Structures are given as structure tokens and as C-alpha cells.
């Protein structure tokens, strides 16, 4: 009977779009042994692996069987998500190619400059905005707004809840800031093409896609990093004469440092300042084609001299291979296994990240060649996960609070970016983290008097149906009252 069910589930795998389809062995989840009662196990799994239980979820999970349900969440391609897919298809701009956003941005800037020059010459004449330009400006704002709004929508309506959590986890781990210059032009594709297809695959694939993403290349300045003078390049580099007020162009270390400190090894992971420079050298030439807003490797600015990174020698006169080899080294480093695993444990188990669990599942990360799904399986089926100590032990971030409140009340955001404004007011603007370390994930980072005022007021707003941008479901008065409670702040 079990085989029949598994077989039936497998047949559906091909008809579910949106995830990278590499054949995965069937995830098996062994029978859970835990000090928690069965009801609490279900409650806990829903709290941690989804954005909060909807009315009726506990019964649904119990009838599927908790272990089977977890296995399905670990294999999102096997979960029917047609409802969410059809809702998400209603957003107008989600599929807009970056090249169009880049072109629209150029149009808007040219028009604005012309207008300002015009008002300089004729200050008495009020500038008239051309409709074409107004459309372009509106579409640009909408593109970023919808990238954020659809993220909340999916968190609320998708059946692939663990997958949506992992998309959010990686967008935070590889955080970019929409407020820095043109980064916002690259964010829709960052979500759609870089992170979403790889959120539960191999870490090395994800790392590589992020390293080549215009969003990250721009945000952390690698796009403008070029070989220092005196270095050999593969193709002669005619260094542009320094214009008045231009800094000398050369190596930019920003991405190289954050790549190791924040994305892979961790600050104590065993790299030195010399390694930062060598990694930066290896990544010269990884830049953005300005016309298309796409990744391009420019041999003319790539430092092709020999390098040594974390003890490994990178031979001279190579091109994009230098950067690829660096990413290979970093992805396979034991510090990376521990650093990534620890972050997963903090997110899914507890702020104090039991070290035995981290070690065990870091071992799984390494043994599986950096397989995110396998590592997750290790973490979320562990005894530490299903422990009394972990139960209701995490505090919700603003995003989690809002998503869980909407789910608890059968509410749904509307299609406008208004729905995400409350999350901004609660202190966690989507794609709005200024620093590359991403949003913190511990109770003490989010709990303070000011935050509580806003959280309580949000709960009251939603309970009384006064939240802009949200279609409130039927709010059970008991549930409504609980939205502002201390208990509801926890997951």
C-alpha cells in the first residue's frame, strides 16, 4: 500500500514546474521517537516547517501521517501547488526579464535629466511628464513591489511551505539590499532565476549562481573590481584614464571578504586577509553587461597571475576557472559545512544551536556533497528538533509573524505591495536589509519595547479587519484575540 502511494506521488513529479528537476532519491522519514506527545509533534512540525498552521492543518497532517508529510515537504516537487501557482500568475511584472527593467530604468533617467535641464533653461514652465516615461517608472516600482509582495503571498498560500522557508533562508543568507543603486533592477531575477530554482539542491550550485548574479555583483561591488595595475590580464586591458574625481580602478575586496565571512566559511572559518585579496583577484572579470543586466566574464580585466587561496595554488593564465575553483574550494571546506548547518539549526531548532546536532548534520552536509535537502532532513528529523527544549522556543521574525497571522485567520494578502508595508513597519522590509549579513534570527534581536508595540498593534489591526492590503478571512474571536498575545510571538 505504501509503495502504491509513493509510486503515485512519483508519477506526479514531472507535472510540477518551478523547481530544478534533478532526480532525487525518495526521501524517507523514519518513525519519530520523541518526548513530545504526538499532538505536540504535529503542532511543532507545523510551527517550524511552515509559516504557521491554518485552521484544519493539524488534522490534515495527522491523517497523512506526520512522517509522510515531512517527507513530502522535503520533496516539494512532489507537492501539488496549483492554487498558489495560479494566484502568483496574477502578478503583472514577476516574469519581466532584467533586460527590460534595465532599459526602462535608462529611459526614466534620460527623461528626468532632460526635464531638469529643461527646467534650468525655462524655470517658469512646469515640467510635463511624458506618459511613456511615467509607465516605465511605474513598472519599475511595481517590479520590485511585486517581487516582495509575491514572497509574502507564497509564504501564506503555497503548499510547499518548507520550500518557501528555504527560499527565504537563502535570500537572507545571500542578502542583497534593494536600496543600493541599481540593485533593485536585478532583484526580481535574483528571486526568480537564482535562488528559487536551487533552494533545496546542491549548495555549490546555489553559491555559483549567486556569485554570477547581477544583484550580488552590483550590491557587493565585484562588478567594478578589476585587476590591479601591474597584473597580467588575458587580453590587453586599456585602463581608462582617471577622470576628474574618479577613484583609481583596481581590485575591490568587498565581495571576496563577504563571500568567505558571511556566505561560506564564517568569520572564524580559517581565512586570512591575504586570502581575501587572492579571492578578489580570482573573481576579477566577473561583472555585469550593462546593456542586458546579465552576467558576463571580461578577460580584459581578469587578473591572470598565479594565486594561492587557502593553501591551494591557482595557476596563472586562466580565466573564469579561477573563480570557479575558488567557489569549489569554499563550498567543500569543512568550516562551510559547519557554518551553513549551524544557521539551519538556529532557524529550525533553537537559538542556542546544540553543537552535537550541528556536528552531526554538518557531517551529513559534507557526506552528501553539500546537498541542502539531505542536510535539512538530518536537522528536522533529529531528536533535538522534536525535543521539549525546542518546542515553542523560537520567536517569530516580523515576516513570520505576519505570514502566520494571515494563515491562522484564513486571510490572504491582496496583489498590491501594500501588504508588505506592515512588515516594513515591524522592522523587516523585504529586500531592505542594508548590511549583507541579512536579518538576525534570534529572540533577543527582535524583542524590545518598540517592536512589541508594533506587533501588538498589528495583531489588533488584523483581528478587526483593518489591515490594508489584506483580505481577511473569517476571524474566530478567540483566534483574533490571540494574535497580539505573547504566545503568538512564538513558534
Amino acid at each position: 500500500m505504501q509503495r502504491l502511494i509513493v509510486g503515485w506521488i512519483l508519477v506526479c513529479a514531472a507535472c510540477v514546474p518551478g523547481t530544478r528537476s534533478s532526480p532525487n532519491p525518495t526521501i524517507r522519514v523514519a518513525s519519530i521517537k520523541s518526548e513530545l506527545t504526538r499532538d505536540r509533534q504535529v503542532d511543532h512540525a507545523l510551527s517550524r516547517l511552515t509559516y504557521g498552521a491554518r485552521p484544519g492543518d493539524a488534522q490534515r497532517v495527522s491523517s497523512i501521517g506526520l512522517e509522510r508529510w515531512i517527507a513530502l515537504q522535503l520533496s516539494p516537487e512532489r507537492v501539488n501547488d496549483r492554487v498558489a501557482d495560479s494566484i502568483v500568475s496574477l502578478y503583472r511584472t514577476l516574469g519581466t526579464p532584467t533586460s527590460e527593467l534595465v532599459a526602462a530604468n535608462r529611459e526614466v533617467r534620460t527623461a528626468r535629466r532632460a526635464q531638469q535641464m529643461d527646467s534650468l533653461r525655462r524655470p517658469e514652465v512646469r515640467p510635463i511628464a511624458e506618459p511613456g516615461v511615467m509607465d516605465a517608472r511605474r513598472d519599475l516600482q511595481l517590479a520590485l513591489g511585486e517581487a516582495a509582495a509575491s514572497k509574502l503571498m507564497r509564504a501564506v498560500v503555497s503548499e510547499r511551505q518548507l520550500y518557501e522557508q528555504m527560499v527565504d533562508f537563502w535570500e537572507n543568507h545571500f542578502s542583497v539590499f534593494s536600496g543600493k543603486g541599481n540593485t533593485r533592477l536585478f532583484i526580481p531575477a535574483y528571486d526568480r532565476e537564482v535562488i528559487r530554482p536551487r533552494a533545496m539542491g546542491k549548495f555549490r550550485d546555489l553559491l555559483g549562481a549567486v556569485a554570477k548574479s547581477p544583484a550580488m555583483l552590483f550590491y557587493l561591488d565585484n562588478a567594478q573590481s578589476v585587476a590591479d595595475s601591474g597584473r597580467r590580464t588575458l587580453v590587453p586591458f586599456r585602463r581608462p584614464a582617471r577622470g576628474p574625481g574618479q577613484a583609481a580602478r583596481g581590485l575591490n575586496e568587498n565581495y571576496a571578504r563577504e563571500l568567505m565571512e558571511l556566505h561560506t566559511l564564517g568569520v572564524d572559518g580559517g581565512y586570512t586577509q591575504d586570502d581575501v585579496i587572492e579571492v578578489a583577484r580570482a573573481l576579477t572579470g566577473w561583472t555585469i553587461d550593462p546593456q542586458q543586466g546579465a552576467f558576463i566574464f571580461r578577460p580584459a580585466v581578469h587578473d591572470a597571475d598565479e594565486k594561492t587561496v587557502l593553501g591551494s595554488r591557482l595557476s596563472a593564465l586562466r580565466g573564469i576557472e579561477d573563480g570557479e575553483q575558488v567557489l569549489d574550494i569554499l563550498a567543500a571546506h569543512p568550516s562551510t559545512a559547519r557554518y551553513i548547518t549551524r544557521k539551519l539549526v538556529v532557524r529550525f531548532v533553537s537559538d542556542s544551536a546544540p553543537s552535537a546536532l550541528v556536528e552531526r548534520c554538518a557531517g551529513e552536509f559534507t557526506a552528501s556533497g553539500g546537498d541542502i535537502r539531505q542536510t535539512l532532513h538530518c536537522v528536522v528529523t533529529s531528536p533535538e528538533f522534536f525535543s521539549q527544549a525546542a518546542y515553542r522556543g523560537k520567536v517569530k521574525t516580523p515576516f513570520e509573524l505576519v505570514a502566520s497571522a494571515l494563515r491562522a485567520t484564513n486571510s490572504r494578502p491582496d496583489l498590491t505591495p501594500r501588504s508588505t508595508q506592515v512588515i516594513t513597519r515591524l522592522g523587516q522590509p523585504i529586500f531592505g536589509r542594508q548590511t549583507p549579513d541579512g536579518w538576525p534570527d534570534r529572540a533577543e534581536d527582535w524583542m524590545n519595547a518598540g517592536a512589541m508595540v508594533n506587533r501588538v498593534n498589528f495583531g489588533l489591526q488584523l483581528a478587526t479587519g483593518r489591515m490594508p492590503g489584506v483580505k481577511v478571512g473569517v476571524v474566530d474571536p478567540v483566534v483574533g484575540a490571540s494574535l497580539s498575545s505573547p504566545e503568538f510571538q512564538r513558534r
Partner: protein
Amino acid sequence: MKNGALALVTMGLSPTLLRRTIFAQELARGAASLGNARGKVLICLFQRGAADALNVVVPHGEQAYYRMRPTIAVPRPTLATANSAIDLDGFFGLHPALAPLKPLWTQGILAPVHAVGSPSSTRSHFDAQDYMESGTPDSKGTKDGWLNRYLAAKGTCAECAPSAESREPRAESLFRAVAFAQQTPRILMGPEASVAMNSIEEFGIRSNGPAAANIESMYATGRADVVHAAGGDMVEAMKALKAANPAQYQPRNGAEYPRSQFGQRLRQIAQLIKSDVGLEIAFADVGGWDTHINQGGATGQLANRLGDFATAIQALVTDLGDRMSDVVILTMSEFGRTARQNGSGGTDHGHAGCLFVIGGSVKGGKVHGRWPGLETEQLNERRDLALTTDFRSVFGEVVRKHLGASALDRVFPGFVGQEIGLL
């Protein structure tokens, strides 16, 4: 009380939370004068977008200034028109829109500092603001803001740490650091707690009668965990603010704040100071300074921004009255602008700029810093005002002499400032 505090300690609450918890408890008992309740206050005001220093504090004694800005220079004071620079010391003058600040100069409490800024050569707004708020120019690895490091450093100074005998940590105000902004600004980011609010009025339960009482009772059941502790803090904080009675607040001494968001934010800073809730650090920012095109000279875009800026600050100083002896207002902007005007009647990103230090104990009535001159060979990269004072020297001196912090190396690591003589 002592038992209560010790019990909390054994539950492993962080020291910061514990100090605030005790404050909240004592506030509940009506003990108003705690911690820094009537102590020194620093108000930081960030002009985002790189304010054009040469048209703010005008070097009207420089010939080069008028050569380089044929249509946007502010006329010399000798012309004595409404559009002329307001003379300060025969060489420098204020932009006429800054007229509300002139009385502060005359009273000797306004100290402009010129040719001050960041040693970083970046001309990126984002990076330069980042550096000025993190307090570590050219270093992108810094996670916290310098004001947060100040809060941490002061909290562990010798006179503040719990003494060997008493294990009760010193009480600390919930409102020790307040940013009037939607989010906690970079300058206050870090482990020490601060409050970010849009307005004092917003800092309350927004609903009628029963819901509000309900909330209070939900969070009144002890402070045993971090959620209840924060909730308890919230209830106490709202009570403290209610006592400050925002709806009835009347500025004193005839102070009239402009209706702008900036003006209203300064009004609320004054209100918080006067409510004695223990405010020590206040922050607000104001944008609109990135005048690349058509900035105007004595009138126009920049003049309009300066008018609101000056009117708001003057209202704040007037409203605070005597309290100004405990207050320093420190303005800042991420860099200055090009010495020459560009082809669009504006200016582009530059290097050094100017700032104002205002306060009862400030050595005002003098333009501080060393003026490098505006001849081409004196300019930075032959285009911008050159830097002669690192911003950290100014900030560090204010923090040390006004607020009494001794661990400056923790606030601005790796930096040794020069003495300026502002306080």
C-alpha cells in the same frame, strides 16, 4: 527587589534586558530620577545626500569661490541685500536661509566646523553614509554603528558597572537611545537596545478601551521569558510616554516648529527630553540635499531645504531653553560637493564638507577646523574642498567631553583624533 533581580539573573536574561527590566520596575514605583534621567543628551541630525557645504557656510572671503560658482554663489555680505551671506567672522558667512541660526551664533552656542569629513575617497552616497554611521571609513566589515558602540562603552565604564558588593546592575532607561525613523538607522545598529519610532503618538496601543486593557493583562504575567520581558517593557514605556502627555505638549518660549516631517521630529525630541524619560541619544535624518541640478544660489532648491532645516533647529533650541546646557546638537552629512558648479547649475559629489555643533557648553561664535583654501592646487583632486579634520575627531570630542565616555577606542576603533576645542 534585590531578590527579584537576582532571580532574573539566574534565568539568564541578558544584562541589557535586566537593566531595563529594573528600570521598568522602578518606574512603576514612581521613581523618576534614574540613570541618565536629567543627564547629558546628544542629538544627531543626518543630512542625507551630501549637503553643499560651500553654500551652507559660505567662504565669502575667497575670491576663488566666486570664480568657480558664477551663477550659484551666495553674494558677499557687503552687498547687504536679503540674498547676501550673513557674515559670521569677516571670512565666512551663513547662507541667508540659515538666518534662524544667526542668533545662536551671536549667543556663542553655534560652532560650525569646516573642511571636515571622511578620509575615504568614495563618492558613493551609500558607502559614505555607511562609513559615517559605522564610524569606520573604508571598512565595510563593521556590523554596528558608532552610536551603538558608544552605548555599549558607556554602559561598561568604571562608574557604571555593577560594583563588587552589590550585584544589582545599574538601571538604564528604555528610552536611552531613540531614533525618529521608520527603522533603526545604521548608526544605532548593534547589540545595545534603542527605540525607533515614527512619532510619540504612534507609540501606543491603537485601539479603544477593552483591547488595550486586555493587552496589558496579557503581558502583566511576569517577565520570565524574553517575550514577556519585552511586553512588560512595552507597557511601562507606553505609560511613561503617556505621562509625557503628547497631546497636550506645548513648545515653550514661543518656539514654532515647521510643519515638515523634520520639524515635527525635532519637536518630539524636545518633548522626550523634557519628559525626563532618560533620553541620552536622539537621532533624526532629513533628505533632499543631493543637488546635482539647478540648486540655486541664495534662493532655490538648496535654500528651501536650508530654511526648513534652520527653522526646525532654532525652534528646538528655543523650546529647550535652559536645558540646552545639557544638550549638544551635532549635524552631519556624508560628504560635501564639488567646489565648481557643474553644467546644470548644480554641484556633484565632493569630499570634505561642514557640520554644526550646537549646545550650551559649546565654544560657539567661531568657525572651527583649518581652512585649506579654494585655489585649484589647494583642492582635493583639483575639484573638491580638501579635508583637514576627520569627522571622528569631532564626534569623538563630543562623545568624550559632553557625554563623558572614556573608551573612545571602542567607539572609533583604530583612530586617534585631534583636539578641536569645541567643548
